């Protein structure tokens, strides 16, 4: 898709990602609910853009508040964030863990359609309302329900365990596990530098050793251990999506925003099993669409946020992006190429495994991280953005490679 109008994102805000690992998390104590997260993130962005008066419409990305919190109809929470949003249009988007990415797409399309100049996009999920074993039932809704009966107790870890198992079989288990462990270690390194990250307080002296722990199918999955998985998280992220007029209205300089250079949005058939477990075909398609839309290649990228709900998904994404040949992704990662000082730094604030995975917020969180990195706001987690490859990219996935939103960004100029 060629963008017929310039679209920007700015004024990103992340709440903390709350869950096991954060010092303030206590499973036995009452915790903030959806309302708190929506308010904190929404207001965090509004204060940076001169208030809610400047906003034309709102969009809330959320996956399963209907079950995690017994709450649907999230679009109508916008006026609760700020009374000045009363009677303005607002919708909620859902595409499993790509719900946040769809909230971005929705905002971008409103700008392109010239029906709005400023869109407030908030992603939210509050998942610690139930134990992980029941949460697994809720999250399984991202897959085809007809397959649930035959699925694993922890449905999605089971799906990606199958992918890891297929990769082990094809390319070697020890070889692969080294790549997975390195992915986990990178996530910890980066999360420690970001004070909203769920693993910010992580102090384990040897994450590689944790990552190498042998999976145990009797209590969890056959091919993945718990460190291969993103955790259960509560959190929200918000960002403002604007046209050039919108930036002017809010008094924001282009350099303080990122421009959306290209996007790719694709879905696969949720009722079909993957043709090849060692490939992420829909992700590959969305990346291709985004590159075509942006007119760039992978070699123009300074940093990427990929959807590492599981370490194996991270490895497969490096192959889908073309950084490594099939079967060489594990090596590419194990060699440190995706670390913050590597060839192509990926998930510089920890990604889903390190920063956290409040499912409906994740797509928005990825955009906030890229905005921070490209405009020099990432604090301790800041990496250097080379002048000759100034682009950033987010890849947000829903389900097992079923809904994918890929976006290419560049600092505004």
């Amino acid at each position: 898709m060629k963008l017929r109008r310039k679209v920007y994102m700015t004024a990103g805000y992340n709440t903390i990602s709350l869950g096991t690992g954060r010092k303030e998390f206590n499973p036995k104590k009452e915790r903030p609910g959806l309302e708190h997260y929506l308010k904190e993130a929404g207001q965090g962005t509004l204060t940076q853009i001169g208030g809610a008066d400047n906003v034309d419409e709102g969009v809330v990305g959320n996956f399963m508040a209907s079950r995690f919190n017994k709450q649907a109809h999230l679009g109508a929470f916008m006026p609760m964030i700020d009374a000045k949003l009363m009677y303005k249009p607002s919708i909620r988007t859902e595409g499993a863990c790509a719900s946040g990415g769809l909230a971005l797409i929705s905002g971008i399309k409103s700008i392109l359609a010239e029906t709005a100049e400023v869109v407030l996009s908030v992603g939210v999920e509050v998942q610690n309302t139930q134990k992980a074993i029941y949460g697994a039932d809720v999250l399984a809704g991202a897959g085809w329900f007809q397959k649930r009966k035959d699925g694993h107790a922890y449905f999605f870890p089971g799906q990606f365990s199958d992918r890891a198992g297929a990769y082990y079989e094809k390319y070697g288990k020890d070889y692969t596990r080294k790549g997975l462990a390195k992915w986990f270690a990178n996530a910890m390194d980066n999360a420690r530098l970001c004070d909203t990250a769920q693993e910010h307080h992580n102090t384990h002296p040897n994450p590689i050793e944790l990552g190498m722990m042998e999976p145990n199918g009797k209590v969890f999955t056959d091919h993945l251990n718990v460190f291969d998985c993103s955790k259960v998280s509560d959190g929200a992220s918000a960002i403002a999506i604007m046209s050039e007029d919108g930036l002017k209205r809010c008094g924001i300089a282009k350099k303080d925003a990122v421009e959306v250079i290209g996007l790719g949005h694709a879905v696969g058939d949720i009722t079909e099993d993957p043709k090849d477990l060692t490939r992420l075909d829909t992700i590959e398609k969305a990346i291709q669409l985004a590159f075509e839309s942006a007119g760039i290649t992978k070699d123009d990228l300074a940093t990427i946020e990929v959807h590492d709900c599981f370490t194996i998904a991270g490895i497969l994404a490096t192959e889908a992006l073309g950084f490594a040949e099939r079967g060489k992704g594990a090596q590419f990662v194990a060699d440190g190429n995706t670390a913050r000082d590597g060839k192509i730094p990926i998930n510089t604030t920890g990604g889903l495994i390190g920063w956290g995975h409040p499912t409906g917020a994740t797509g928005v969180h990825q955009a906030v991280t890229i905005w921070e990195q490209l405009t020099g706001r990432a604090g301790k987690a800041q990496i250097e953005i080379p002048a000759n490859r100034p682009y950033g990219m987010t890849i947000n996935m829903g389900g097992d490679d079923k809904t994918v939103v890929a976006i290419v960004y560049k600092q505004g100029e």
Partner: protein
Amino acid sequence: MDYINKLEKVSVLGAAGKMGSGILLLTAVEMADQALKSENKDKSFTLNAIDVSNDALGGLMRYLKVQVQKLAEKKMVALRGMYADRNDLIENGEIIDQYVLDVMTYVRPTTALEAAYNSTLVFEAVSENKDLKNKLLSQIDKNSSNKPWFLTNTSSVPIHELEKGADLKGRIVGFHFYNPPAVQKLVELIVTDATAADLKDFAMTYAKNLRKIIVPSNDFAGFIGNGHFMRDALHGIHTVEKLAKENSFVEAVYMVNKVSQDYLVRPMGIFQLIDYVGVDVVKFIMNVMNPYLKDEDLHSDLLDKYFELGVKGGQFSSGAQKDGFLKYEKGRVSGIYDPDKKDYVAVADIQEACDKKLGDLPKSCVAWKSIIGKKDRSKEFTALFGDLKNMDTLGAKLAMEYGARSNAIGKKLVADNVAHSEADVNTVMLTGFFHAYGPINEYFV
């Protein structure tokens, strides 16, 4: 021995008690797990939960539901396999609900002892009273045509006395769980000279299915666990009585409790442990054991006094600790009982002075919590007890005496042929009492 047949009709006596409820839970879950196997689909299982208190039985059913649900959540991977043929059960939550229902369906709460007459297996977990146990076992056996097997959870009564008293002729075995049975891994297994081989096999299989660690003990009052604990507790009480000559009584209790916890690196001090088990229970167990001991007097006037004063410890049904020797607030020790004033003295009022009298702990001291997760702890303990040996403080002296006494008690259990080996004594204290090192060691010589 047909394990499943024996497991089909079971009764638990004292089912609503501290030990009985745990035994009931484990047995109900084991029944369900067996019943869900395809080869057992035609079997029917019954588990009578027999207790004297109707109210307590209500509490038992609530406890069971909560506990079964927790267990189910932990074994979800296996449960999905066990319910694979139930197409109506799709989500984890649905399977867990069904499992809880299935387990609960086997349990029949009742105050009628007659329910046990039809059982093929009877677990006895009533209070530590030999005559009561004899009466119940004998009544069931006389009224049953099944020749039932009896598993007694007694922690102190010699099994052969129950065998003789109820005329069971080899149909009883000691199967002593530790508190709480659902959590503690240890079971002491005690057979008599007459115990049927089939019954022993059953007990071994049952323990294995429950994932318990079995330590065989000889059939001597108190067995290994209480054989050590009762003498160890008495040492603590005697030390208090000695210290109380130069200190106030509550100060003495504070100091001995602290030494037995912090200096000896145990999960709790000796008076906290007595409270946990129950002052009354400790007294009963000593009373049961004492007549069998030739060269020692296992008895404490102090315990009798507390019992008469109604200071008994033990736990509320919620699991919270009741006040005994010590007072507890939010799980922490906040006061110490003064039997003269018949009231508790705040720990905060005496702590500083007592700690000063005990002297500083050596730098090599480790917290029980921080070392229990380590596999090899010998280096740390060699350093700590080596330091204590060379220190001239009251705390160090009391600790070395305590450790040496514990060592002597352990060795005597082997010498008296209560335990088969020193290793068995250590296993009981390590797994049943969560000690960080076995009583039989080289640290205190």
